[in-house]
């Protein structure tokens, strides 16, 4: 049995998440992944924005920074650049990362700065009561789209790859063992890592759309295909399916390492003893 309590601030419980929420499943996966990487608690800085999932850092015993809405990547960039020895993990939601924080998301990916971003995608704004998110599927009901959304949703992984991220993975809260491995890989990867987790908000997404918690979880199972399995499937079989797994990995200079080299270069040029 995995010892979760070693990593938790027990006095913070009970947590704020609704019964059936995916956030707790993902948090446990994150803790198992951190344990597998073998990091000390002091070595980890966890940064989040605003939203249900962004409350996660309050529950875990690391150096934790719960910032402003949409800005965790900006704060995390400062932490990592100022103290590269810290392993910086960003916990963010789909609204936090892709709407209000979209600019920071693409630029952190562009820099390929060594951050691991765990993006909780529940297709809604849960904390504020189920408003339309940049990830809400077209046609679904939201509290600001009562007759169904007409907005097309974002694909966070495609966006990250296009912007320059060098480790891009997608998982679901249903496939938690796969999620463990993908988070572990993201932490170990030197560069900008994105792990998008499809999870549910049964309270504010499921209920108005008349989808039960069980159906939401089954959807995660039935509508996703692992990238390796997808290789053996026909385009017809893959119709409407979402690909999970490690979607993209590349080697490209990492920002903080590049900055350290820059310092060495200018100091040598200026005759400063390093």
């Amino acid at each position, binding site marked *: 049995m995995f010892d979760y309590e070693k990593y938790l601030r027990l006095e913070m419980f009970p947590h704020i998440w609704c019964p059936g929420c995916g956030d707790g499943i993902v948090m446990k996966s994150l803790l198992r992944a951190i344990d597998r990487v073998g990091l000390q608690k002091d070595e980890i800085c966890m940064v989040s924005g605003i939203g249900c999932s962004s409350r996660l*850092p309050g529950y875990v015993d690391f*150096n*934790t920074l*719960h910032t402003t809405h949409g800005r965790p*990547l*900006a704060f995390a960039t*400062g932490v990592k*650049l100022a103290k590269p020895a810290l392993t910086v993990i960003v916990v963010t939601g789909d609204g936090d990362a892709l709407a209000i924080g979209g600019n920071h998301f693409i630029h952190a990916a562009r820099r390929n700065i060594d951050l691991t971003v765990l993006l909780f995608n529940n297709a809604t704004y849960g904390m504020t009561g189920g408003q339309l998110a940049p990830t809400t599927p077209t046609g679904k009901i939201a509290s600001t789209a009562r007759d169904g959304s007409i907005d097309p949703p974002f694909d966070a992984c495609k966006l990250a790859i296009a912007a320059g991220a060098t480790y891009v993975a997608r998982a679901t809260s249903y496939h938690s063992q796969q999620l463990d491995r993908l988070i572990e890989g993201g932490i170990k990867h030197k560069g900008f890592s994105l792990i998008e987790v499809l999870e549910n908000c049964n309270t504010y997404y499921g209920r108005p759309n008349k989808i039960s918690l069980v159906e939401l979880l089954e959807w995660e199972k039935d509508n996703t295909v692992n990238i390796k399995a997808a290789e053996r499937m026909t385009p017809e079989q893959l119709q409407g399916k979402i690909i999970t797994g490690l979607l993209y990995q590349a080697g490209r200079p990492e920002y903080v390492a590049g*900055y350290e080299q820059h*310092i060495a270069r200018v100091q040598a040029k200026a005759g400063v003893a390093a």
Partner: protein
Amino acid sequence: MSKQMQGRQIKLLQGNEACADAAIAAGCRFFAGYPISPSSEIAEHLSVLLPRVGGKFIQMEDEIAAMGAILGAAMTGAKVMTATSGPGYSLKQENIGYAVMAEIPCVIVDVMRGGPSTGLPTSPAQSDVMQARWGTHGDHPAVALAPASVREIYEETIRAFNISERYRIPVSLLIDEIIAHMRERLVVPDPSQIVLWQRPRPTVPPEQYLPFGDTATGVPPMADFGTGYRYHVTGLYHDARGLPKDTPEIVDSAIRRLMRKIELGMAEIQKYEEVGLLDAAVGVVAYGSSARSAKAAIRMARARGISVGLLRPVTLWPFPENAVRGLADRVKHIIVPEMNLGQLVLEVERVVAGRCPVHRVNRVTGEPIPPGDILAKIEELAKA
């Protein structure tokens, strides 16, 4: 440009350059910014200076990100700064409020330009005095300093770092464009002569550490991330351990402590200059470049036999209430010249509270206030 003379370094420096130099002297090792006139020279200079001393400069994707990045860096123990101008200062306000709430030391330079909106990108104004006080939402303490010369930019930049560190509070340096782009002689102090304050750090083991606990000064010690003191930082109301709590008792004591720590520090945060006030019948209250115009006007008035003096706040926030009240008790009239339509004057009027009439001299055309404008008001009042 620079030469050694009698052990001191004499430089001819632009205000923005002096600000960058002083930041390095103050121990700033992290700067994040975004290009904006008329502050960009500060970022440009620090992009060169910081890597040379092993520090970090990063140009972020926007003003909000620059503010966020310095706060993240400050959590690791670094002294941090950003620089901007009116529109960027507006964008940073939410994260400035976060810095107040989470008690993260940082310096924000705002080289003021004419507003509102894009306004006058390269023309001077003193438009952000009230933004510096009330720009972020909610009750909060604010510290803002307004230098009036290149030399004073150097001194006040260092003081901004010192206050921000000792009190764990964001400090705004309000420079008007005239001072920022002016070149003046600066005698650079020897590093051994510069007094630097550090943020209080914990002296107890991690298990006893209270990152947001009350102390005699109201300022709790601040541990650097990654040094064994694992704790939570949030913009939510929180208890002494930093954990989110919103009971009425915790909320009340938290916000009152934030206010109290600055009230307790008032004596060393306050700074103002008094010129010729002993025999003055008219007092001018002015800051930044308007104070330079005021000084010229006062010289001219005195040459004409009018007894007039100057009270020049260098610290605008917290407002020097006692000094202004004392002035109001001594003079018959107070004049407040500002390159806005009346911002600090509102505070002067509040404090004077009818002790004497308060008169305004305002200009919002993107031009400095000519000494003649202030002189005309002085002469008008002297005749009355």
